[in-house]
């Protein structure tokens, strides 16, 4: 625990968002994006702890909690929890907005997104996230632009896929 703690302390000065986790009500991890380089063991430990903490909270409780020396911003959409870790100087509300924007993007891309979409197309969910956030910072605030980039990359993927089959 002590080493992990130190590790996070070392890195947490480095960027806005530390990581983003998506997990189900049952505590199953559905997506994880780390903007701080940690070892697998540490990631696992943090994930386990956070999932437990967040799931234990009642629905009426607020979306923010202080955890170690980070702030955790989470929001539940249907059966999925979207959970982000930010540092103490960062704004919780804008993080909530980032989460919501990401959900909107998923919704637009998959068409009324649900947990299964993310499970079965988890790579797409990552691609969308990568177009939206880069290194923990919002890189594109326009939904239209993000989706355009994804669509074009998808198109490119299909073309090269067809070529490969020929």
């Amino acid at each position: 625990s002590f080493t992990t703690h130190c590790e996070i302390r070392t890195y947490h000065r480095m960027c806005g968002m530390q990581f983003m986790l998506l997990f189900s009500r049952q505590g199953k991890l559905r997506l994880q994006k780390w903007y701080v380089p940690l070892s697998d063991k540490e990631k696992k430990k943090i994930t386990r702890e956070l999932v437990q903490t967040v799931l234990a909270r009642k629905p009426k409780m607020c979306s923010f909690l202080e955890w170690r020396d980070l702030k955790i911003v989470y929001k539940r959409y249907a059966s999925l929890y979207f959970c982000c870790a930010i540092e103490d100087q960062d704004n919780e509300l804008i993080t909530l907005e980032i989460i919501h924007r990401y959900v909107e993007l998923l919704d637009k891309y998959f068409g009324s997104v649900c947990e299964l979409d993310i499970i079965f197309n988890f790579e797409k969910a990552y691609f969308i996230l990568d177009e939206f956030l880069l290194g923990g910072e919002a890189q594109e605030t326009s939904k239209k632009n993000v989706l355009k980039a994804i669509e074009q990359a998808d198109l490119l993927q299909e073309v090269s896929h067809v070529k490969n089959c020929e």
Partner: protein
Amino acid sequence: MALKIVKGSIDRMFDKNLQDLVRGIRNHKEDEAKYISTCIDEIKQELKQDNIAVKANAVCKLTYLQMLGYDVSWAAFNIVEVMSSSKFTYKRIGYLAASQCFHESTDVIMLTTNQIRKDLSSPNQYDTGVALTGLSCFVTPDLARDLANDIMTLMSHTKPYIRKKAVLIMYKVFLKYPESLRPAFPRLKEKLEDPDPGVQSAAVNVICELARRNPKNYLSLAPLFFKLMTSSTNNWVLIKIIKLFGALTPLEPRLVYSCVHVVKYLGLLAMSKILKTHPKSVQSHKDLILQCLDDKDESIRLRALDLLYGMVSKKNLMEIVKKLMLHVDKAEGTTYRDELLTKIIDICSQSNYQYITNFEWYISILVELTRLEGTRHGHLIASQMLDVAIRVKAIRAFAVAQMATLLDNAHLLTGNMQRNGICEVLYAAAWICGEFSEHLENPMQTLEAMLRPKVATLPGHIQAVYVQNAAKLFATVLKSQEGNTDSTAAQETSQLMIDRLPLFVQSANLEVQERASCILQLVKYIQKLQQKDVEIAEEVNALFAGELNPVAPKAQKKVPVPEGLDLDAWINEPPSESESEDEQPKAIFAKEEPKHSRPRHTEVDEKELARRREARKQEQANNPFYIKASPSSQKVYQDTPGVEHIPVVQIDLSVPLKVPGLPMSDQYVKLEEERRQKERAEKKKKEKKKRKEKRSGRGKKHDSGPESEEDITPAHQVDIVTEEMPEVNSLDILYFVPLADSEKLPVRSHRETPKSPAEDGDTENAALQEPKKKSTKEKREKKKDKDRDRKVYDIQGNLQDGSQVVVSVIFENKGDSFLKSMEFNVLDSLNSKLQRPDGSGPHDGLTVPFQLPPGVSNEARFVFTVQSIIMPQKLKGTLTFIVKNEDSSTHEKLDFKLHFTCTSYLITTPCYSDAFAKLLESGDLKGSSVRLEGVNMPFHHLLARICFHHHFSVVERIDSCASMYSRSIQGHHVCLLVKTSGQTVSIDAKCDEPTLLGNVLDEIKQTFSQC
């Protein structure tokens, strides 16, 4: 080599893809670990192959497993391999895997430097894009050092997509390799003014983050940021900049002001949002918001005004308006003042003057507003004056007195009257004085004021009102004067009219001229009569008799229907019955139900109305398309309390307009305060009494703290009965809302029966221009035990040609969950196959091209190929779909059967009796017969049934015997001879295909056994 590729792609077909893996894991909940370890073994095998597609697939699966917590570090090298693929598809997966799995101690990262450099300089922006994205996750100090230059170059890439990413990743590079900051900074600064907003916001982000760490070095950028802050419309950027300023202010206090400004604006904006849901919490900040009205920044003032609109209550209305009036005085000659004026009126008049407790005060406010020069809103004030004077009976005397003063002092306004719109007020003033002239203290004086020569300079429509109302006043004056013994006064009044009116007769305005000349003649005649000492006042007054009352929007409903008037009776002869039969020629085949008599218009009683209203409200509340009205601002109007209950306010009315110091509306604030205090005192007294009475009991303490909204009784009542305002809206809403069951209009019964086959076929023909077709109807209803996703499949098959069948399926979502990703699949038989798009396998399902919200139905068509049509067929199929609930989503499936009967291959084809006879004579047809016992229905019903269900047409009918004909889609002739005697029906049939005939006869038998 070619063989290898072929082998590879064959192998691939049998490999699990990611979806299979995910599905597999979900299906092996008990022994997940074991299942995954076999999967990992498979993946290891796949990674050993040369085929890059197989490898990429394996890496993709590994990425998923990594998320589940399995160690995949052993595959790091394979990930690098996939990253290096030249195909974007695989490269994308490779980089994703790397960004998920690599960390600083992953040693293969060293090997990637050159590959990443190559990708960064790729001509394809998306190659560059994935490389940058990936790099942002696993950049190490070494990579940062080696690639810093490449990324710096990318900051000036032609594509904003790349520039944006490059700028953001520079931040990561700076952190890992701080030496790069100095050379890169000028370029980064340049990006703050990039033409692309995305790049701009990226640069803002990076610099903000840097500045937070070391503010001193970035102080020089403050002016640039200030410019951005005032010009940017992107809220995300604004927030970042404010944060940056937050970091800089300790060093440069002047920045505080600009920050405060933006924050203030945002705060007010936020408050107005909160106000809609939680008005109470905002109201406590009233003083703060009023302070914002003093702000130098107009946009902040306007925001504050918006807020005030929502904040008023009976308690604070006077105070807020008083404050606003002060601002009106200060804001001379600006558009802001006009805005203030409209806001004051808006605030006061909202929700039917809900918050006004003292209308005398309001009238005085309106009068005060008339002193504004150069406002465009004269008509607004005028309409308010009219509205209040008409609707609030109790205020009329006061209003009339005020208006008379206004008319008397018109010259004060007229100075620059033509220029500004304020003279519109005189329109209202003249009308009010005329209409309610009985309240005037000195009508003669007012009449004189209205006929001054200066009036002729007013706009035409106002002059017209002046003339008309002068006549009304004249009538009133006459009435008062005629009672006197001295009749000369009355005659003098007439003379005044006769002297002054010619001025208006000469008016260029048609309306003025017409009225003036008409009234002039009238007065002349009156004068003539007066000279003969005839009492005329009564008759003159009759000209303007009758009180003008406000009418509620729904008053018509209250008018009872006169006796003997039947609104439902036909005025003309009703259209003849034969006409309607012509419209529905096929109706003879359908079971005719007695026609509904026109629903009689019943007298709707109050209860019924209330019930319907309730039902509609319920329906609106549940309907997502209906935007709910804000909590209704209905007011229950009690019967007007007699005038004696209103505290009469005695004010010296001779001066109000000229009071230089204290505006008179202020007096009301004080008076109102006093009135309330008195009321409160009375209340307390009552309470005390009550308490005394209760003292013997428990003596519960009453809360006599701050008075609540309800405690304030209005001094005047708005005299109009408005029936439930929100209901008015429902009218236009109905157009957008799908009718609920209860609201559906009654449909005539034969419309509801399925379309007859011939009709169906005909429309098909018209559309496709092909000779003959055939349509089938099959109905299947599937139920799942759970209510929530019940669906009905109504399968209608249209046979296109000899071997193709189109099946239309209607999917109806009867549950309350959202259904999506529906896949329709049928297990093909040798004879019948579902047609699938080229390239898909024989067992692939077809995606249903729509999603189903609850309660929605939609139709999809599927084409089947059928080889032989002589036997009936049943195809098994499955529909898989995702059920989405509020908080969960499940994958479910529904099994169904498609029944292709032989009948469904028959097309209704007309046949003439001679052709029919020839067919039978030819001897090519083989015979068969069937007997139906216990058929208890008229013969024509029986025939109609065969026609309808089995697509035959009647060739000839003689008494209880009929010949019938049909044709299959592959050209088989089917002939029937149907005879009936008593309850027995015998059918002799002939067809060139005995098996088909046998099956058709069986199906006919089946039809009749069911009834």
